[in-house]
C-alpha cells in the first residue's frame, strides 16, 4: 500500500485540490500536439455542455441533464493515455466521457433532444448512451450500478487474454453503495484489469462528501482489498494524464485493479434543476478562477509558444462542431412511432449487437 496517499483526516468541500500525486515536471511535458489535442478536447466538452444547458433552458432537452463543466480534465487526461480496445463505462454525468471517447457530437446532442439521429435513436436520453464502436458502454442511470458492469468488461478482457483495461468511472456519491465494494473485492480477488476512477467533485447531489463518506480519503477505499489508490489533482489535466498512465500500466500488466481519486469540481448544479444552494458562490468562483482546467492548460500552451491564433482557431473549430451538433439535434426528426416497439429483444439466430450469435 506504499502508493496510497495519506490524506488529511477531514476534507473541506471546495478546498482547492492538492497537486500531490501525478504532478508533471516541466521537463517531461507531453508532446505539444498532445497538449493541443487535450486543450481542444476539454474545450469541446465545455462548449458542448454550455450549449446543452442552453438547450435545456429552451425546453429542447427534457428530463434529467447532468453537466460535466469543471470536470473536463479528468476524462480528457485519462482517455489521452488509454489504448485502443480499452473499454469505458460511467454513470449518468456522461456527455464528457462520450466526447472524450471520440463519439460524434451530433449523435450525442441529438440523443439529448430525443431525436432519431441520437446514439440511442432517442430512446435513452442524457443518461443512457452507448457506442460499441468507440468501446463506450454507457451511460448508466443507477448510482454505482456501472461498477460491477465495469468489472465484467474487465473480466471479458482477461478471459480473452487481451491487454486491455476497463476504465470504470464513478462519483463520490457512488462510493457509498454496497455493490462498489462487492466489485472491489472481486476485482482484487481475480486481478481484473479495471481502473476505478472516483471523480470526487465534492458533492453527491447536495451532500458534501465530508457529510457522506467516513474515513480518510476515497483513494483509500480499496485498502481493505489491497487495491492501491492515490489522490490526484483532477483539475490539472497533466497530473491526471501522468497518474492515469501509471495506473493503466499497473492494470495492464496483470497486477489487478487500481483506484484513482480525482479531486475535481462541478461548476453547475447536480442536474439542471439544482440551484446548488448548499455551497457559496465564492467557493464556485474560487475554483473557476484559480483552478479551471482549461485556463491552466492554456497557460501551459502559452509557455510552449502556442500562438493566440492557434488557440483562436481551436476555439472556432470547437464552436463550429457544437453549432453543427445543435442544428443536427434540432432538425433530426423525432423517432418514428414504430420505434416504440423495437429493440426490446434481439431475434434468435440473427445477429447480436456484438456480432453473429
Amino acid at each position, binding site marked *: 500500500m506504499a502508493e496510497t496517499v495519506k490524506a488529511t483526516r477531514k476534507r473541506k468541500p471546495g478546498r482547492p485540490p492538492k497537486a500531490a500525486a501525478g504532478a508533471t515536471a516541466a521537463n517531461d511535458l507531453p508532446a505539444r500536439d498532445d497538449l493541443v489535442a487535450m486543450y481542444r478536447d476539454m474545450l469541446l466538452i465545455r462548449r458542448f455542455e454550455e450549449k446543452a444547458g442552453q438547450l435545456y433552458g*429552451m425546453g429542447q432537452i427534457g428530463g434529467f441533464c447532468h453537466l460535466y463543466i469543471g470536470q473536463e480534465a479528468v476524462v480528457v487526461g485519462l482517455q489521452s493515455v488509454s489504448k485502443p480496445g480499452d473499454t469505458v463505462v460511467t454513470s449518468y454525468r456522461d456527455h464528457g466521457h462520450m466526447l472524450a471517447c471520440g463519439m460524434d457530437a451530433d449523435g450525442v446532442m441529438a440523443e439529448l433532444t430525443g431525436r432519431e439521429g441520437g446514439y440511442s435513436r432517442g430512446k435513452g436520453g442524457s443518461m443512457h448512451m452507448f457506442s460499441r464502436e468507440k468501446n463506450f*458502454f454507457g451511460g448508466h442511470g443507477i448510482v454505482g450500478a456501472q461498477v460491477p458492469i465495469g468489472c*465484467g468488461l474487465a473480466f*471479458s478482457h482477461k478471459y480473452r487474454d487481451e491487454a486491455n483495461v476497463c476504465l470504470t468511472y464513478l462519483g463520490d456519491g457512488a462510493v457509498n453503495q454496497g455493490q462498489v465494494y462487492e466489485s472491489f473485492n472481486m476485482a482484487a480477488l481475480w486481478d481484473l484489469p479495471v481502473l476505478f476512477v472516483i471523480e470526487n467533485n465534492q458533492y453527491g447531489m447536495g451532500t458534501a462528501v465530508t457529510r457522506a463518506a467516513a474515513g480518510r480519503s476515497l483513494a483509500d477505499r480499496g485498502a481493505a482489498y489491497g487495491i492501491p489508490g492515490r489522490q490526484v489533482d483532477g483539475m490539472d489535466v497533466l497530473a491526471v494524464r501522468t497518474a492515469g498512465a501509471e495506473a493503466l500500466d499497473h492494470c495492464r500488466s496483470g497486477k489487478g485493479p487500481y483506484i484513482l481519486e480525482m479531486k475535481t469540481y462541478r461548476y453547475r448544479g447536480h442536474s439542471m434543476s439544482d440551484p446548488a444552494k448548499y455551497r457559496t458562490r465564492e467557493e464556485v468562483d474560487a475554483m473557476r478562477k484559480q483552478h479551471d482546467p482549461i485556463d491552466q492548460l492554456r497557460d501551459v500552451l502559452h509557455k510552449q509558444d502556442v500562438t493566440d491564433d492557434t488557440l483562436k482557431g481551436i476555439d472556432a473549430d470547437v464552436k463550429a462542431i457544437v453549432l453543427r451538433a445543435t442544428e443536427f439535434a434540432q432538425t433530426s426528426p423525432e423517432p418514428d412511432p414504430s420505434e416504440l416497439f423495437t*429493440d426490446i429483444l*434481439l431475434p434468435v439466430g440473427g445477429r447480436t449487437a456484438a456480432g453473429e450469435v
Partner: protein
Amino acid sequence: MAIEILMPALSPTMEEGTLAKWLVDEGAEVRSGDVIAEIETDKATMEVEALDDGTIGRLLVAAGTEGVKVNVPIAVLLEEGEAAGAVPAPAAAASGEAPVAGAAPAAEAAVAAPPVVAMAETVTAEPVATGAMAEITVREALRDAMAEEMRSDDRVFVMGEEVAEYQGAYKVTQGLLAEFGDRRVIDTPITEQGFAGLGVGAAFGDLRPVIEFMTFNFAMQAIDQIINSAAKTLYMSGGQMGCPIVFRGPNGAASRVAAQHSQCYASWYAHCPGLKVVSPWSAADAKGLLKAAIRDPNPVIFLENEVMYGQSFDVPTDDDWVVPIGRANIVREGSDVTITAFSIMVGRALEAADKLAEQGISAEVIDLRTIRPLDTETIVNSVKKTSRLITCEEGFPFAGVGSEIAMQVMEQAFDWLDAPVARVTGKDVPMPYAANLESMALPQIDDIVATALATCEGFRGA
C-alpha cells in the same frame, strides 16, 4: 450576430418564473459562465449564466417581473464589434407562448400495437428426437446442457456461489470444474449484486455468462442489475447493447425452509419487457431449454425447482437437442377442461388429471415451459376445445402468472369460455415453516381436482 438570452427552464416542469434580479447592466462585458441574473420559481432561486462571451446590449425584462414565460427573450448579448444600435426593439416580454423547437407529439395516438409484445421472433419448430433416449435426472440434464454448450462455444462460462469446487450447492454443476477448469467455472464470493452485475458487463463484453443463483430468493439482492442493466439496456441503447446472459437457479418452495427461502418469482420477471422467462418441468425440456437459453442473444431467467432436481425422465441423446423458448407443450390431451402449469406444478396437474379421469372429466394439461414470451396460441386453441381453463402455479395469486393468462384468454377467447377462469395458486401468505401449514400454503393435487370439479360443475355435457 446579436444573441438573444432566453428565459431558461430550470426543471422539467417549469413553465414560468420571476426575474428577481439582474446582476449585470447594459453595456457590461460578460464571459461564458458569468452569472447575469437570478430567477425564482416556486421551488428555488436559481442563477442564470451567460452562455457566450460578449457585451450585454439590452435588458428586455425588468428586474422584479413575475410570470416570465420560459423561452421569452430576457436580454440581448452583443458579440465582439457589434453596436447596441443593431439590437432589435424588445418584443413584448412575458407574453405569448414562446415557440419550442421540436415536433409536436402528434404521432403518439397513432401507434397501434398490442399492449403486451408477445413474441419478438418467429419461434422455431419443436424438435423431434431422432435417436435413442436415456433416463437421466433434471439435475444431470441441466449439467449436460451447460457442458455441451461450453464445449461448443468458448465464450460460455459458469459463475456463482459454490459452482466449482463444491460442485454446486445442489450439485447441478457437478463435474464442470474438472472438465473446463477455473477459467470457465468460477466460484464467487457471496455477492449476488456484484456477480450479477459482473455477468452483465461480461455479456456486454461479448461473453456468454451463465450466472447461477444458489436460489432465486437471493437474486432479490441483484434484481436491480437484472432489470435495470440486463433487461433495459438493449432498448436504451437503440439496439446496440445486447445482453446474452442466463440467470439460473432453483425457484419456488423447496421443503420446510420458510418464507425467505420459498417463493416463486415467475411473475416478477415475466412482468418486465426485455427478459425471457423459462421454467421447465421435465428433464428433456430442462436440457433443451437451457441450451436454447445459453444460445439466446437476450437475457434469460431460467427458473428451476429443487424438488425436481432428483426426478428422472427420458431425455433424447441427440447432440443438438434444443427446445425453443416460447412454446408450450400439451403433455396430456383432453376435452373438458384445460389446466396450465409450469415447473413442479405440471406433475401435480398430471396427477390431478388422472383423478379427474376417474370421475369422467377429461383434462388437457399444458406445460407452459416458457412464461415469457407466453405461448398464448397454444392456450387459446386448447380453450377453444375445452371451454374451461384452470391455471396452476406455486406463486402468490395477486398479479400472478394465472392473472395474466386469464386476461389473455378473456381478450382472445372470451366467447369460447363456458365458465370463469379459475386459479390454483400458493396462498396469499409468506411461507410458513410448520409442516401442516406449509402443506396448506402450497397448491396440492386435491386443490386442482376440486377447482376443476367446481369449474366443470353444471357444465358437463352441456
